[in-house]
């Protein structure tokens, strides 16, 4: 049986009975507003996550959604194997099928981290480029089409593609009233030298994307990282043309903030790194960063919501540096950023529940509406204590990853 996407919207009901003892008490203790309850009853949905099931956010969140009674499906991204095949049918009815999953009206599609399109490796080498291009075009067709269907997409592919550009981020942030460090993005040696010579500020250099170098196969690993750079340390003009880079005024900061945008809700968390590293990530991975909730200044929240409206993103992870005058400096946003590590660092934050309340709520839900629903979902701590955690398979390495180089 097929289900029409556009021509009819079949009436649906949703089952809210929560079979899980972890949650049963919570739901009964936190009655939802009648309006929300009615919306859910009228709006059966499945959550379709575009990522491998064992992706590090997908696995716990899929488990948590299922514990709360939601239907969840995963599609790892376009590929030649059956579970990664896809179809767009423009026949009497219009259908989109991702893997084994039919996209239906009312579904929520979370574009998490789909794998890159994977053509059949048996394709003749003479046709490999053609096949790769066709797979890429088809993948774009699938992702853009989602926005034309009666489904909710988080984040929309157009918004994702748009905002995953650092220049766009900085310009929009500035336009929305945020403090943005002076920045130069270039591959022009002359521009770099002029910028450094005419600027008394301390400067940093960062890359547009992350890259990993293995010194040898299986050997020591080197990863791109923000670093301080001064005029006297600039390399030759030749080297400056090898790769474009981002040169930015260094913000002398008191601490960092990771902010999570969830629709109309903004949550900020201060990150205190005892080592005071330029980039807190390495230390956070080691559990060395203290994470605490912090109130978002109203003017910053207003700017971030304006930024979201201009960019089209509904959720994302923002990074700010807070200077000694308590000014918040926008550094960047990752619309597909990580956020569960916050719960791992501080179990009182409940970011997992907040995100799931956002994901399953109608678009445009207020912060109050989201927070009224977050107790429906199990926490990160619940996941860690569950058998599901031990059943999670490790993510597979991508042998074709373009962000890994082997030096020897």
């Amino acid at each position: 049986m097929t289900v029409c996407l556009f021509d009819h919207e079949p009436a649906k009901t949703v089952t809210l009975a929560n079979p899980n003892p972890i949650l049963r008490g919570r739901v009964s203790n936190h009655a939802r507003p009648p309006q929300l309850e009615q919306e859910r009853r009228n709006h059966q949905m499945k959550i379709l996550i575009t990522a491998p099931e064992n992706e590090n956010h997908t696995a716990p969140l899929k488990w948590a959604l299922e514990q709360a009674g939601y239907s969840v499906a995963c599609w790892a991204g376009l590929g030649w194997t059956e579970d990664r095949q896809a179809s767009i049918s423009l026949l009497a009815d219009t259908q989109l099928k991702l893997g084994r999953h039919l996209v239906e009206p009312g579904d929520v599609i979370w574009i998490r981290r789909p794998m890159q399109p994977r053509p059949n490796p048996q394709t003749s080498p003479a046709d490999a480029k053609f096949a790769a291009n066709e797979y890429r075009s088809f993948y774009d067709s699938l992702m853009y089409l989602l926005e034309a269907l009666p489904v909710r997409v988080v984040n929309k592919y157009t918004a994702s593609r748009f905002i995953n550009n650092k220049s766009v981020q900085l310009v929009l942030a500035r336009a929305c009233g945020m403090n943005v460090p002076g920045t130069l993005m270039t591959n022009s040696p002359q521009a770099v030298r002029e910028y450094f010579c005419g600027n008394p500020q301390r400067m940093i250099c960062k890359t547009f994307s992350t890259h990993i170098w293995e010194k040898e196969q299986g050997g020591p690993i080197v990863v791109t990282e923000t670093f301080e750079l001064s005029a006297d340390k600039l390399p030759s003009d030749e080297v400056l043309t090898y790769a474009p880079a981002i040169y930015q005024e260094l913000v002398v900061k008191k601490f960092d903030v990771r902010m999570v945008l969830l629709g109309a809700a903004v949550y900020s968390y201060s990150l205190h790194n005892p080592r005071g590293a330029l980039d807190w990530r390495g230390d956070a991975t080691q559990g060395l960063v203290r994470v605490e909730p912090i109130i978002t200044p109203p003017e910053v929240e207003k700017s971030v919501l304006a930024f979201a409206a201009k960019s089209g993103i509904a959720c994302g992870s923002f990074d700010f540096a807070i200077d000694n005058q308590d000014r918040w400096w926008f550094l960047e946003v990752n619309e597909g950023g990580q956020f569960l590590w916050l719960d791992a660092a501080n179990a009182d934050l409940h970011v997992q529940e907040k995100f799931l309340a956002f994901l399953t709520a109608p678009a445009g839900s207020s912060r109050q509406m989201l927070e009224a629903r977050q107790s429906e979902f199990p926490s990160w701590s619940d996941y860690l204590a569950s058998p599901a955690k031990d059943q999670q398979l490790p993510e597979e390495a991508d042998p074709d990853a373009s962000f890994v180089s082997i030096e020897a």
Partner: protein
Amino acid sequence: MNNDKRVLGRQGAKELTPSEADHVNGGIITRLSVCTIPRPGTQGCDGDVTS
């Protein structure tokens, strides 16, 4: 490895300690971590914050 003609980003890159490297396996961070390396052509990575 001939270090001539290396990009500036490589010169400023950080060699991971063994415990940090433990979070990376073949280019894919395998545990819940701050920065998951993006799959090419898809989402960006939140692994490159500035100052």
